[in-house]
């Protein structure tokens, strides 16, 4: 059975060029960049090269890139640094639709004495900017707002928020894990102070990520120990991972156009065809202002886990906002924050495409999905009632 992988917001295929670039650094050039001997020390050059490639994708300077183990570490490092830099400020702000790496981190700070504001979103997933402005005060240490939402793909007004926060002297962090590699990002044109990215979301390896730290931003290390990363992040460098992330960033720059045109076209074709073929289905989130690779579709009166398992029978991989897939019993906090009704939230499926997605795969999904939904609806006691009353 073939595998149609439409879960690229969860993780991506490591590009073959990335694997090839990494391989020599496992058993041939396995030295430690901190060593005095050239066998290890020479690797410092390679790490520098990779850092420059990562910086180039963002419009940043290489010395503004801190290498980490991934998105979660980057997020935790950023917030820790901002709070350590302004210890007298006790208020932090984020949104209600962040990834758990930020959501749970902020909840934890809330338990440890910080005042935390979670800014709401409207039914299309857009942040309430008035409420956001009203929440800020002299006591606000840091604001963290994602660049793009992982479940709906909705983009946030990062430039606007960054400019306002700069004027007020509040540190601004953005979790851009879903945005980097999917849309162009130029940090010379925005006032973001801290930005997180993750290797495995852009066809790089797992276990590597980066935190952009704008020059002049106050910083305190999160992990202490050795002097690596100029004393900003202890621990022997993950050389193969760093090489891989560098290569992935270099490749990503060349794929942005394909994602904006061809992949966007496939995404639009997929959602339009499904909306047309499946009655009582709808898109979650603001359609116009989204990542080009993501669509979250609600199929009313059916349950997401059942849909995913039937899709799995055809080799189609996607994910769901359903409670039953996550181990918790409440549907996705993102969809609930948007006020998506239970009838729709439980049956929401996220399709996320990539550079490697083909038109043939999309047509296959368009063919297989409607009978799956119809079959589950036929089993559902609510579907009949809805059909009778409607």
């Amino acid at each position: 059975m073939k595998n149609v992988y439409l879960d690229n917001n969860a993780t991506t295929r490591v590009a073959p060029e990335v694997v090839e670039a990494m391989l020599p650094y496992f058993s041939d050039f396995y030295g430690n960049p901190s060593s005095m001997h050239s066998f290890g020390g020479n690797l410092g050059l390679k790490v520098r090269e990779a850092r420059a490639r990562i910086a180039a994708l963002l419009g940043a300077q290489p010395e503004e890139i801190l290498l980490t183990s991934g998105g979660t570490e980057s997020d935790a490092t950023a917030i820790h640094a901002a709070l350590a830099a302004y210890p007298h400020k006790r208020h932090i702000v984020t949104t209600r639709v962040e990834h758990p790496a930020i959501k749970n981190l902020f909840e934890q700070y809330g338990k440890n004495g910080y005042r935390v504001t979670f800014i709401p979103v409207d039914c299309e997933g857009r942040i309430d900017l008035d409420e956001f402005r009203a929440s800020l005060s002299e006591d606000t240490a840091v604001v963290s707002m994602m660049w793009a939402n992982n479940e709906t793909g909705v983009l946030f007004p990062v430039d606007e928020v960054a400019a306002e926060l700069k004027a007020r002297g509040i540190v601004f962090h953005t979790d851009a894990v879903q945005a980097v590699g999917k849309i162009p990002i130029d940090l010379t044109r925005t006032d973001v102070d801290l930005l997180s990215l993750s290797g495995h979301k852009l066809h790089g390896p797992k276990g590597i990520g980066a935190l952009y730290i704008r020059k002049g931003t106050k910083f305190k290390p999160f992990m202490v120990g050795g002097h690596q990363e100029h004393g900003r992040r202890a621990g022997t460098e993950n050389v193969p991972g760093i090489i891989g992330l560098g290569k992935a960033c270099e490749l990503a720059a060349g794929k942005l156009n394909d994602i904006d045109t061809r992949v966007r076209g496939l995404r639009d074709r997929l959602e339009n065809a499904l909306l047309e073929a499946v009655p009582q289905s709808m898109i979650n989130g603001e359609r116009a202002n989204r990542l080009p690779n993501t669509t979250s579709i609600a199929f009313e009166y059916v349950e997401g886990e059942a849909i995913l398992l039937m899709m799995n029978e055809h080799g189609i991989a996607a994910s769901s906002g359903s409670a039953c897939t996550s181990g918790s019993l409440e549907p996705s906090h993102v969809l609930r924050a948007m006020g998506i009704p239970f009838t729709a939230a439980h049956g929401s499926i996220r399709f996320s495409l990539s550079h490697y997605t083909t038109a043939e795969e999309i047509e296959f999904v368009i063919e297989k999905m409607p009978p799956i939904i119809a079959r589950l609806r036929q089993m559902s006691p609510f579907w009949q009632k809805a059909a009778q009353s409607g």
Partner: protein
Amino acid sequence: MWDYTDKVKEHFLNPRNVGTIENADGVGDVGSLACGDALTLYFKLDAEGRIADAKFQTFGCASAIASSSALTELIIGKTLEEAEKITNEDIAAYLGELPKEKMHCSVMGQEALEKAIAQYRGERPRQVDGNIICECFGITDHEIEKTVREHRLTSIEDVTGYLKAGGGCGNCHDKIQQIMDGVFGQPVTIQPRSKKLTNIQKIKLIEETLEREIRPTLRQDGGDIELVDVEGSQVVVNLRGTCASCSKSQVTLKSYVEAKLRELVTDDLVVEENRL
């Protein structure tokens, strides 16, 4: 990904007896859209009072659909007296096994059957009795207590797995804990250890037990206790506050402190007051 048995998968992909029955003898309706799963069960009796046919409609995940399918297979051919003996454990056993987090799917099957039989007999549908504890899923204290007792559940996660109670906002976790404490007579958060402890583990556990279990009780009477030393199985303590001067302090020491430490740490401990 959930770890479903092949039988669960098979019943999910090829569910038996999906549909409705016109003029059914009994119909049972449980769950709601908000909860994320719901089941309507129909049955028809033959001339001898056996269940001749059963059908279901289910909204829910794979294990909810498989549990409903299993339920219909289990009840067809049975008299109502036989059918009402079927428990959620029987449904789970029929499917091989259900993940713990999904036991509520089998509970839903049992409840639908109870409701359908009650409807047939003309009994009033069971009133929701007791007070709602879990507001997210509308679960009462009676239901929680019954399930905790029947299945000897000792953690909030288990209660959530069986009943969904506590799986939403989490505000009711303290109340669920209280119900479990009530059923088992005491907090069950610290489990008795049977395996051999190292000295350090033993001292830590003794300190933890003093802090969490014993000290709060003594403090209610204005007393207090502190750990001086542990040597082998001998635990040396100082009694403080009203305990220090209380004529019954030796009784407290032996019948309460020692008993509690034996129960929760190791059963050979001897507690003595510091004589120095």
